């Protein structure tokens, strides 16, 4: 209503533009898939039922002084959205919004426990999953808020915005009865979150100075402190859920134009976050979480000569974990700081070449306040990054780019170590990474474009003995679009990606020997589409077809020592185990639609869409809900999350739009 208040006056003004549209679309949908498939088909959509009526509306009012925009859609569904903004040109702008985002993971999941969705589960161990309770793994975000932007006293400005999100639903969480080696339970985790965000900003913007002061506040609340599973584990179990937290801070941002077409920019900010561990039974020590961050950015850019661009920059970012645990149950408090500095140079060369290059140094220093043993302290990283790019736009119909980037990462460990030290973890391991990219855009005619891209990336984790040792990937992208004036628009794209990962691992305590895994991710896809103006401005046919395929695999090479009696690796007939179904999937879809302009104000549409998703994975093959025999490490009580995501979907839709 606040947004609408000025507009009674606006509507009385002579020089005004009013436009908008109202659409109503009927959808009939048929999804063939199991529980996971039905959810995957509608992962972020609300199309679960047989279909329904979907509405959409848009309104715009524009005068010399005032403006008002309204947009809304999917009324009554879990994807509904409403946005309204309005104000006086050059003076102020108000906006309000409401938006829903569903995330469907698996429908008709099962649990041997009663009361899925609540924080205390009950029930008894039972392997007859046909008798288990069913529920849906799904969450829904309801977001709403608004904002005000004020420009009345230029060059000063003031902005304030507030947003609140309620997230509710159930998602899967895993827990073991005992560790290691206990029975695995997949449990329904209740999601009842509320997040509030407030941002206030005030500033000054007039050449040569931009300056703003910004404050932000965010709090997160979880209605459920813990998930209690009292009866079915060996002992009553409590599983911790995300704790309430609060985060607030302020920044000063500024930019100042200097002589020689130069500009200095800065951003200095400090923030503080805290969390509460709510139930004393979780940690009896009375842990209080607190982590502060400090960020300082400063950069100088210059373009003193037409052929020269340059910039230097510095960034300091620190996370200081100030959590407190009086009795020492928690004994690790990770701090880190990242210092980044570097420079870049760009040169406009003859024949419309543009050459740019740069260097960046990143120092990441980690500390763990609760750890005194230098063997256990996390190491520091020193990154040296170099890049060079060349762009050529010497022909009116062609643009080409090529680039190379190099990363050398060194590690500084806190204590001497052997080459096989397991602390050389991927997360901070020394690495050498080369990236090469090339791009070509050709536009021989104003209505015809071709694009081609290639990327190659190779990373060697040079000092790693165990863990991820290397990764190598290629990516190719191509696209084309062509417009035949009043006849049609055509477009197509294609892509190919291939990545290979090499890992070497040691078999672990009680076993001898190293094993190797080589993992491949390969995917390719294409799409074609057309808009055909069968009767120009009257009847348009729209066609779209997309295809995406992922073919993953992993080859294990195991040492003979792992096949000795008692290790549990029965059934291997050789030391090479190849898994061909490793997140394999094929996504195939097409859509055809006819749009008919009945009159200046009315438009009708009719269409059909088909989509099929076929998913295969060794970890989910022959999915079973429960096993309570044999070794404890073979036992499990699963609920069906991600069980089988394959589906086939048919969708028929027809709609009418009124435009004004």
């Amino acid at each position, binding site marked *: 209503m606040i947004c609408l208040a000025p507009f009674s006056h606006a509507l009385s003004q002579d020089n005004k533009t009013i436009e908008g549209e109202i659409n109503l679309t009927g959808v009939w949908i048929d999804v063939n898939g199991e529980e996971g498939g039905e959810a995957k088909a509608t992962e972020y959509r609300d199309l679960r039922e047989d279909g329904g009526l979907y509405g959409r509306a848009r309104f715009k009012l524009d005068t010399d002084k005032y403006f008002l925009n309204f947009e809304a859609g999917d009324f009554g569904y879990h994807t509904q959205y409403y946005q309204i903004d309005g104000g006086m040109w050059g003076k102020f702008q108000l906006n309000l919004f409401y938006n829903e985002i569903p995330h469907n993971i698996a429908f008709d999941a099962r649990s041997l426990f009663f009361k899925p969705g609540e924080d205390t589960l009950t029930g008894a161990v039972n392997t007859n999953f046909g008798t288990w309770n069913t529920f849906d793994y799904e969450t829904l975000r309801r977001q709403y808020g608004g904002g005000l932007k004020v420009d009345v006293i230029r060059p000063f400005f003031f902005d304030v915005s507030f947003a609140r999100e309620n997230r509710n639903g159930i998602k899967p969480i895993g827990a073991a009865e005992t560790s290691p080696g206990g029975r695995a339970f997949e449990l329904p985790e209740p999601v009842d979150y509320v997040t509030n965000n407030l941002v206030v900003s005030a500033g000054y913007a007039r050449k040569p100075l931009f300056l703003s002061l910004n404050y932000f506040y965010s709090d997160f609340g979880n209605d459920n402190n813990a998930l209690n599973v009292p009866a079915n584990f060996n002992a009553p179990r409590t599983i911790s859920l995300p704790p309430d937290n609060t985060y607030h801070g302020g920044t000063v941002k500024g930019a100042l134009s200097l002589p020689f077409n130069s500009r200095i920019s800065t951003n200095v900010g400090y923030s503080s976050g805290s969390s509460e561990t709510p139930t004393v039974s979780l940690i009896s020590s009375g842990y209080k979480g607190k982590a502060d961050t400090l960020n300082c950015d400063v950069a100088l850019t210059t373009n003193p000569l037409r052929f020269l661009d340059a910039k230097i*920059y510095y960034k300091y970012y620190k996370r200081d974990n100030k959590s407190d645990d009086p009795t020492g149950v928690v004994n690790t408090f990770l701090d880190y700081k990242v210092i980044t500095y570097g420079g870049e140079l760009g040169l406009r060369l003859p024949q419309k070449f543009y050459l740019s290059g740069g260097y960046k140094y990143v120092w990441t220093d980690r500390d763990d306040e609760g750890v005194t043993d230098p063997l256990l302290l996390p190491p520091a990283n020193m990154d040296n990054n170099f890049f060079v790019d060349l762009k050529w736009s010497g022909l009116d119909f062609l643009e080409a780019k090529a680039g190379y980037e190099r990363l050398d990462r060194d590690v500084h460990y806190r204590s001497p170590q052997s080459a096989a030290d397991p602390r050389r973890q991927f997360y901070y391991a020394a690495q050498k990474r080369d990236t090469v990219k090339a791009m070509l855009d050709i536009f021989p005619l104003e209505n015809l474009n071709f694009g081609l891209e290639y990327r190659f990336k190779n990373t060697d984790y040079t000092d790693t003995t165990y863990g991820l040792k290397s990764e190598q990937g290629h990516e190719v992208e191509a696209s084309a679009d062509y417009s035949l004036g009043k006849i049609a628009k055509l477009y197509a794209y294609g892509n190919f990606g291939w990545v290979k990962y090499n890992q070497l691992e040691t078999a672990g305590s009680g076993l001898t020997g190293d094993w190797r895994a080589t993992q491949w991710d390969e995917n390719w896809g294409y799409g074609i589409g057309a808009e055909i103006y069968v009767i120009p401005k009257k009847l348009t046919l729209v066609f779209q077809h997309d295809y995406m395929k992922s073919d993953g695999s992993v080859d294990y090479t195991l040492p003979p020592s792992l096949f000795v009696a008692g290790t549990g690796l029965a059934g291997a007939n050789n030391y090479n185990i190849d898994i061909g179904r490793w997140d394999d999937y094929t996504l195939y879809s097409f859509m055809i639609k006819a749009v008919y302009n009945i009159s200046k104000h009315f438009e009708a549409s009719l269409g059909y869409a088909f989509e099929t998703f076929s998913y295969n994975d060794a970890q989910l093959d022959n999915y079973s809900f429960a096993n309570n025999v044999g070794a404890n490490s073979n036992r499990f009580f699963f609920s069906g999350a991600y069980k089988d995501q394959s589906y086939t979907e048919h969708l028929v839709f027809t709609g009418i739009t009124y435009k004004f």
Partner: protein
Amino acid sequence: MKRRGLVFLSIFFALSLVFIAQNNAQNSVKAGSGFVGSEVCKDCHEAQYNKFMGSIHSKKAIPGNPANKAACESCHGPGDQHVEKGGGRGVAIFAFSKKESSTDRDAKCLECHTESRGLPFWDLSRHQSAQTTCDNCHSIHSPVQGKTYLKAQEPDLCFTCHKNIMSQTNKQSHHPIREGKINCSSCHNTMGTSHNGKAMIKADSVNELCYKCHAEKRGPYAFEHPPVEEDCLLCHEIHGSNHSRLLTRRVPLLCQSCHDSGSHPTRPYTNLHSFTGTATQNKNRFFGRSCLNCHGNIHGSSLAAGFDR
């Protein structure tokens, strides 16, 4: 370290005072003549003129708008020579064509928009350093997309250049980008950020950006998983992945990239451990959700260092 921040700010403010004074002196110099007025432009360019009149740039209520200056000639420059020579594309006029350098084209827009609150860090934008110009993305006369005057809707507009990102969002595990619930600009500030970051994210660090929507991961947790606290991207491919939950690689191998210190985390789990596999131990560490079957609170826990195994 707080002192270091204060030093930055002090230097910045001192420089500001000097250059505001200098700039005020420069602003008193008036531009030369040669303007013909937009009614003359309309005689030959009626369609463009009408679109301009329907655009935000025609609103006189906005101080400093072209409508309050020389209208068409505010951006295209004085038109007298263009008229004298009988017109023609780019003849004695600034046409925003490829013949004009990206710097010159941007400079035209920045004459006014440097004073926009959303554009103080354009000089640090990757788009600027890649010679992407304002008119590559914005259509000044005939916008397709709302107040930001984009030439096409997000993410399609961004995908015209960022083709690899489009491919990623087509993968089976993705944020709801193609469903229209998240836009590129939800996370990226395409106009540049103060930190000169390659991805131009709207936060001082990757994690702080992710926490805006995933506040439950923010903690601080009593038992932290160090890589999680440092960089979400170590395990997640944000735009889309072949692996569920946007993971960069398949579990358990993803976890084993770091957890190689012996005992059960580092043992080989293969299809011998599948639901129907012949292994006699450790099967619930491979099938289903693998490591996550037991270690459910991988982002942090209030209970145990093993993430509530």
